[in-house]
């Protein structure tokens, strides 16, 4: 589903990712752990397409699975434009259905099923959660040539997802993340993920700032929304606690801009017990 090959990226001329390789298949959950400054968030932002994060080498190929198959080439101009961008690898012959992620704008990546859960979700005064999410979901559906959801259909979906994550319905009406506690913002990220129902989620320290109950709700939310044969997750975290709930298939240690060790959940437990310095050395 995602193939990262020898990825190099820099911010303000400073190289942060130095030849990162990673392959994530559909149905898998991968956890990325690592010390501060290792490049974990940079990886998330590069995959999401945040301006200012410059890729200087390597490639990121994405296979959006079901969505790509659903895009009828002539459904809408947007869908057509996306479909055009989905075949950059044609010249290479065998990459059918694979997309060069780095060629796409952030909103196009989202329309293909990529979701970036933010470490620090942004506050947007003046736009309600409901308005924001309906706009987001319908923008994506439009880009994929799918029918738009009516206000009623959307509200039903939003309420179900808020319930599933223990978020007060009233918070859906409030401006996006404004006045939310750290934990509420993270829950809101999960509610958004539930509504958008992406194929591939990159969750950047979704567990930081959560109390034990919220951690459980978020962990179970990830399982409920993203644990499926045709979906995958890249979970960036500092702590092993969330991994006990989500149970990743693979755990990687990111240090110095590349992945230095990979293993199963036992690697996370070892990191928790011994620290990065010991394990990543």
């Amino acid at each position, binding site marked *: 589903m995602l193939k990262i090959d020898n990825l190099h990226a820099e911010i303000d001329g400073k190289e942060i990712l130095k030849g990162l390789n990673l392959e994530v298949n559909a149905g898998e959950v991968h956890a990325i752990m690592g010390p501060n400054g290792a490049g974990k968030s940079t990886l998330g932002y590069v995959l*999401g*397409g*945040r*301006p200012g994060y410059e890729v200087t080498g390597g490639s990121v190929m994405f296979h959006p699975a079901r969505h790509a198959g659903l895009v009828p080439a002539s459904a809408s101009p947007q869908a057509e434009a996306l479909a055009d961008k989905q075949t950059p690898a044609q010249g290479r012959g065998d990459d059918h259905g694979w997309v060069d992620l780095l060629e796409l*704008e*952030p*909103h196009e*990546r*989202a*329309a293909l099923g990529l*979701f*970036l859960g*933010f470490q620090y*979700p*942004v506050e*947007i*005064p*003046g*736009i309600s959660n409901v308005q*924001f*999410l309906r*706009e*987001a*979901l319908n*923008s*994506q559906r439009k*880009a994929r040539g799918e029918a738009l959801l009516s206000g009623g259909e959307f509200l039903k979906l939003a309420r179900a997802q808020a319930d599933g994550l223990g978020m007060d319905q009233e918070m859906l009406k409030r*401006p996006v993340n404004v006045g939310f506690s750290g934990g509420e913002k993270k829950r809101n990220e999960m509610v*958004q993920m539930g509504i*958008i129902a992406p194929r591939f989620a990159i969750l950047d320290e979704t567990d930081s700032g959560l109390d034990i109950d919220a951690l459980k709700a978020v962990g179970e939310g990830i399982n409920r929304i993203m644990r499926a044969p045709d979906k995958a997750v890249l979970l960036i975290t500092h702590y092993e606690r969330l991994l006990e709930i989500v149970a990743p298939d693979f755990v990687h240690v990111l240090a110095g801009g590349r992945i230095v060790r990979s293993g199963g959940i036992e690697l996370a437990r070892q990191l928790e017990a011994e620290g990065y310095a010991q394990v990543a050395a």
Partner: protein
Amino acid sequence: MVELLELPSRREEAWRWSRLDALPELARARHGQAGNAAQHFIGLGGPRLVFVDGVLDEDASELGRVSIGALELATDHPLGRQATGAGWALTLDRDQATDGIEIVHVASGGANHLPARITLAEDAVASVVETYVGEGWANRLTQIELARSARLMRSVRMLQGSGFVSIRDEATVGEGASLVSVFLGAGGMDCRIDDAITCNGAAAYAELGGALLTDGNQRQECAVSLRHDAVNGQSRQIWRAVAKDVSTASLAARVEVARGAQKTDGEQSLRGLLLDRTATINLKPELEIFADDVKCAHGATVGELDARALFYLASRGIAPARARGLLTRAFVADAIDRIGDEATRDAFSVDADAWLEKTL
């Protein structure tokens, strides 16, 4: 009157950001053919007035409790004092209320001047929506007097395609009375909103604000002052300016708290959003406080659209142009959302959206 047109100089502090150069020529120019006014009524079910170049169009108007006649309004305001002669007046007696009054000012070029007076007796309630369309210079002087516990909601939208709209309001707000004025500049004209409000009764409430949206070479400004003369008064000023291209939007807002006006609670928020770095936004918040037991919060900021918010929206699938529109709309929302009546608020939102649609 044309010969008497004496305009303030930009050397005067209160007019430093003004551009009045076009006014003398507009004052000499003739009126043209007026456009249709009917489409600008929101449909509030109350009196409807159409003024074409400052003159009542009787056929298109239903006066209700509004009267037309000569008004002698004393003012020393350099533009306001040009508005003499026949004007409109709303006088409500104790406990009277009227359905929403709608006034459409159609200008056809040249200049037009119109005085108005709103007098609400104890516990009277009124709302007035004014819309400026067309071209030319529309100049207004409105004097407002609210007696004890009277309430006035005033919403003014300036949608002229070109020219200049100058508005001078002078208001007194009595004990426990409430005045809320919201302005929207979403047309192609220049404008100046010049309000002087005095809360002279105890526990009076005044709110003054709005959004000025400029592009091209436009210049819009508000220069308003709100004075608390009595105890326990409350006031809010929420102004937003959005400027694109080489336009200029200026917000100068002052709060004065007199020596005896203890327990005044004033809030002032002036914010500007530059859509291009070639545009200009001037902000001038002023507090002048002579009482010692008051609360006056104020904030003034100018910035660009938040890059983090733009990326956040994009990461959820919202295309850049749409994201810019949503964030700009959100930026002006808190000023427009002060309008109490839903239909009026919606109409103003539609005008703001139309401006954004056209401009972004």
